[in-house]
């Protein structure tokens, strides 16, 4: 169980003295994944770099358990930051690259090679790997040594869906007793993995809440059926082939499904069409 509290108090941060983040304040202390959402250039990476202590806040403070991170290198070493750059010595083999980091920060390269199924890449040079493979090796760094807080900047970018799912599962497992901040552009991924939402817009904190609390009031369900269902339920057929109904809670979708099935119509697919955070992202994030 995470026993640490990460607190940002009125943080302004940026580059060359020009702030990108303005007056960011929040407290994260729950063992879970905090999804950091925001459009390109909103300041997500700057937020991570500031928490990791790479950027010194221009104003305000980043506190871990009440202690100022800027003044303590030891506190900073309790944080693992996975940049969206792979940060791999490309001239090395995969094993040597992981050993390079384990010599620096501790941990066992063999363990992470097993954990991320990297055995077949072990003796390949990093420069010879595909972007997705490099990402896997980069993610392996995260698991070298146990930390208290993990900052993962778009960890599943460039990964195929299968591997993305595996990585998300590993991160979910990790988040059971750790505090994980996870940035993503993928709204489906965000709802899959996250419990809490940190929405950044134009460098400002637009929202900090539980994802469950910020779902849209109504959402669209798509149904594929063997016959026309527009006379049975209030649905419209779209070009995609889906009959679309709008509901405000799961019960309504269930009732609609029962009505259709009772008429002897075969339903082959039923799914939520839009991401629950889409509207929020469009409204607050753009």
């Amino acid at each position, binding site marked *: 169980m995470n026993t640490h509290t990460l607190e940002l108090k009125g943080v302004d941060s940026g*580059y*060359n003295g020009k702030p990108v983040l303005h007056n960011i304040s929040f407290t994260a202390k729950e063992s879970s994944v905090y999804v950091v959402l925001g459009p390109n250039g909103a300041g997500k990476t700057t937020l991570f*770099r500031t928490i*990791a*202590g*790479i*950027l*010194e806040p221009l104003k305000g403070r980043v506190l871990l358990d009440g202690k100022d991170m800027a003044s303590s*290198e*030891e506190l*900073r*070493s*309790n*944080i*693992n*930051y996975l*940049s969206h*750059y*792979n*940060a*791999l*010595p*490309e*001239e*090395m083999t995969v094993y040597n690259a992981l050993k*390079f*980091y*384990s*010599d*620096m*920060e*501790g*941990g066992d390269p063999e363990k992470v090679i097993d954990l991320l199924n990297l055995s077949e890449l072990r003796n390949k040079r990093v420069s010879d790997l595909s972007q997705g493979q490099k990402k896997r090796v980069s993610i392996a*760094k995260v698991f070298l*040594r146990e930390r208290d807080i993990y900052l993962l900047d778009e960890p599943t970018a460039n990964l195929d869906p299968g591997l993305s799912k595996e990585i998300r599962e590993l991160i979910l497992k990790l988040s059971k007793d750790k505090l994980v901040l996870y940035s993503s552009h993928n709204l489906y991924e965000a709802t899959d993995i996250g419990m809490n939402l940190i929405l950044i817009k134009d460098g400002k904190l637009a929202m900090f809440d539980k994802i469950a609390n910020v779902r849209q009031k109504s959402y669209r369900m798509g149904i594929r059926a063997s016959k026309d269902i527009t006379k049975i339920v209030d649905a419209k057929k779209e070009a995609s082939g889906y009959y679309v109904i709008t509901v405000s809670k799961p019960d309504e979708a269930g009732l609609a499904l029962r009505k259709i099935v009772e008429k002897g119509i075969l339903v082959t697919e039923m799914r939520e069409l839009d991401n629950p955070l889409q509207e929020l992202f469009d409204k607050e994030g753009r």
Partner: protein
Amino acid sequence: MAMIKDGRKSGILNSPAVVTARRAFGITKTYIAIAAFMSVMAIAVWGNVMYVNSGAATASNSTALNSSAGNAISSNAIVTGIGSKAGSGTPLLALPLDMVPFLMIATPVVLLFVYDKNNGVLEYMLSLGMTQRDIYMQYLKATLLIALIYSVIFIPAVLAYGYVVYGASAVAAVLPIPFLAIPFALVVVGFLVMAMMGFSVLQKTRAGSNQPLGLAIGWASTAPAYLVPFIFPFETAIYADIVIIVALAAVTLIFLLSAGKLIRREKFLP
């Protein structure tokens, strides 16, 4: 850093400086090949210096018929004869000329630093709690290690060549120069690497130019040592070269110690 160090495996071969030095050689072999070629040139320069010196000694003492007599007179000639005149320090020209292969062999470390910056490796090091100074130290130590290893091979090679071709007297005559060459090489490569790491992180537009500029800066740091032999007599010129070494070491050290204040962490980001 304390926590990071706890997790590190001990052993010289795993030390960050050794790993960085190995990596520098791993990313390019070209500069090593050029350095090897330059070393042959440098040995030729040394040979010339020894030849000129031994020739001067023989000329200054027509009674010297054997090598042992030549030895004593040769050394004497430098100190009391040629050595007392302004410009008699010309053998010391070998000192800055010999720095050229050292500049070449230090260049891969500069390249590695830029490469690590662009790849996000420096950013990761910062995220581990390392300071700007820690990072600079890692690359500086690697450079000094390379220069030291190189000088341990190069200087005895020069002396052995001189001994075999020109005899013990010739070697004895130029003996202060190889002893100056080692500290001079260390401060020159140290200065070069610190200056270029500073340049690389402060360069606003990534326009490259790190290698030619680095070599130019390295050469510029040796430039006063080219003038010294023409201005001072041999003995004084040695002291002048020592002053140059101390000055370069001081500038490098000041830059290293103030790195945290002079260069913000964000400059290390890709």
